[in-house]
């Protein structure tokens, strides 16, 4: 125990409470909510910071986990209280509990136009399974909003990624090819891909089907990953190539034993960025024109002014992002054994 610190805390905490009482009676907690909130968060942060130093080493890890969990919960509770007491406008910032409830509603109650839910009427799974087996269950999941978005984003990502890595390697390894395509690529790269969505729609036989949506995701991923892969190859330290040559690695051997593993870590970090962008693109595309998908759901609920459902949609997008990132991390874990010890730090 550090006596100096604990004395400091025993002064700080009562002062903190006192300050809030004063703020409350001066009506500042009603008139200057934002200011009070900022002051409180700063002081509270300081107190937690000091308190953390008093924690015995033995409990260090668990106390850190406690803080990472507790603080967001605390913020959410404040949000909850403020919204329910009307200190912030619940129309724009609905209570977290209401958001959770509407997330549940989005899963369990079919929405009017698409006649499906986020996960595709999950309560019918058992029934369908008895009627049609696993195939029937699959069809149910397929009709949901989450699957629609997930399918488009994953398909687009893969379709864009594979040729991009191929082209990126060619451009990274051959200077002539690089010179030929570099300027075209950089020019298209800066173009927001959503801007070419109308043109992409025209190209496909069914402009309102899934193909143009997947294509626009694929295009965005393609340009980003081509540039990223090219950079990854060029950034391999020359000394590894020299070492490869000196020990008899040329041609394909050099590619598979030196260039490929040497550029993979950087390609994976590019994939993380590209995945984030793919999500942005697909949500934007679904805003524009889609009959289902999480983007559609958010936009539809904006049109009918159901903010808590919009928030629920946002949470769903976040969850999709987290899920896909996790899958990517798993792939990375498998593909880069030498980076494993630093992956989940």
């Amino acid at each position, binding site marked *: 125990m550090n006596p100096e610190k604990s004395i400091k805390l025993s002064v700080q905490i009562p002062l903190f409470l006192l300050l809030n009482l004063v703020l409350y009676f001066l009506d500042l907690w009603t008139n200057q909510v934002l200011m009070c909130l900022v002051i409180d968060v700063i002081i509270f942060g300081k107190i937690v910071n000091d308190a953390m130093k008093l924690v015995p080493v033995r409990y260090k890890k668990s106390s850190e986990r406690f803080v990472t969990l507790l603080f967001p919960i605390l913020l959410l509770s404040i949000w909850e209280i403020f919204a329910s007491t009307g200190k912030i406008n619940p129309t724009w910032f609905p209570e977290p509990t209401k958001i959770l409830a509407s997330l549940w509603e989005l899963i369990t109650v079919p929405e009017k136009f698409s006649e499906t839910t986020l996960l595709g009427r999950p309560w019918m799974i058992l029934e369908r399974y008895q009627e049609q087996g696993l195939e029937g269950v699959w069809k149910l999941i397929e009709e949901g909003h989450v699957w629609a978005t997930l399918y488009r984003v994953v398909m687009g990502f893969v379709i864009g990624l594979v040729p991009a890595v191929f082209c990126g390697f060619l451009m990274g390894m051959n200077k002539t090819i690089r010179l030929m395509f570099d300027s075209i690529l950089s020019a298209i790269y800066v173009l927001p891909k959503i801007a070419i969505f109308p043109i992409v729609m025209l190209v496909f036989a069914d402009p309102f089907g899934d193909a143009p949506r997947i294509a626009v995701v694929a295009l965005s991923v393609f340009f980003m990953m081509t540039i990223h892969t090219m950079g990854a190859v060029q950034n391999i330290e020359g000394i590894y190539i*020299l070492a490869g040559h000196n*020990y008899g690695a040329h041609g394909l051997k050099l590619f598979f034993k030196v260039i490929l593993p040497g550029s993979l870590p950087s390609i994976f970090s590019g994939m993380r960025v590209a995945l984030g962008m793919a999500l942005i693109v697909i949500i934007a595309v679904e805003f524009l024109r889609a009959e289902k998908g999480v983007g559609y759901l958010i936009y539809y609920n904006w049109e009918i002014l159901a903010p808590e459902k919009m928030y629920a949609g946002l949470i769903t997008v976040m969850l999709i992002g987290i899920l896909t990132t996790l899958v990517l991390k798993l792939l990375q874990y498998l593909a880069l054994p030498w980076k494993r010890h630093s992956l989940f730090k």
Partner: protein
Amino acid sequence: MSVKIRCQGCQKVYRTAEGEFTAIGDATLQIEEGQFVCIVGPSGCGKSTLLKIIAGLDYFTAGEFDVRHGESRDQPINNVVFQEYAIFPWRTVLENVAFGLEMRGISKKIRTEIAREWLQKVGLSKFANYFPDQISGGMKQRVAIIRALANDPEILLMDEPLGALDAQSRLLIQEELLKLWDETKKTVLYVTHSLDEAIFLGDEVLLMSANPGRIIKRYPITIERPRSINTMNTGDFTRTRSEIWEKLAVEVGRSMANQQ
């Protein structure tokens, strides 16, 4: 004894954006088969460049250069221990040591066996399945050295292989290196910035001038083998050292003046 490496009036000019830069002005040297030759010179004088060219990883822009191959067809002509180690971070220690053998198409079983033997020799058996990021700098250097030795080349080219080591480990590995060389009798060209190390290890010390690098003098080292730490305290050793240092100090001074 036959001549293994021969350079006559060799030059290396780099063409850079700022114009031409002469890295090596005149390299003239001759290394006999089985000799251990050390090169010393101020930093930036072109030692690494010379080594890379002799390794066949770059080329001279003028002069005659010749490396004579041995009879054996399967034996690689040379392998380099790079100044930057250059062991592959994506391969385990064992896979790194076996890299050359793998590239030569030697079966997994045999190359693993050979690599393990070498790891044993330098006391790294325990770290066979570690990745380079997980071992110390000194261990990485040893891995780089045995990666070359395991491949059994005719010529071993080493570029300040012990540069980053602390004095104690350096002494130990120097002795180890002499022992290994004694067993294999390879032709060795060894670049170092430590004069003591050069005299301790070499049959011959070549002195390189400040940029543009020239081989300005050749000092045969006649100190008896086998050598040990005590060798460094003999009169022969200190005499040779002050003789070479006299010239080397001038070059180091010139090199430092160049940089200002």
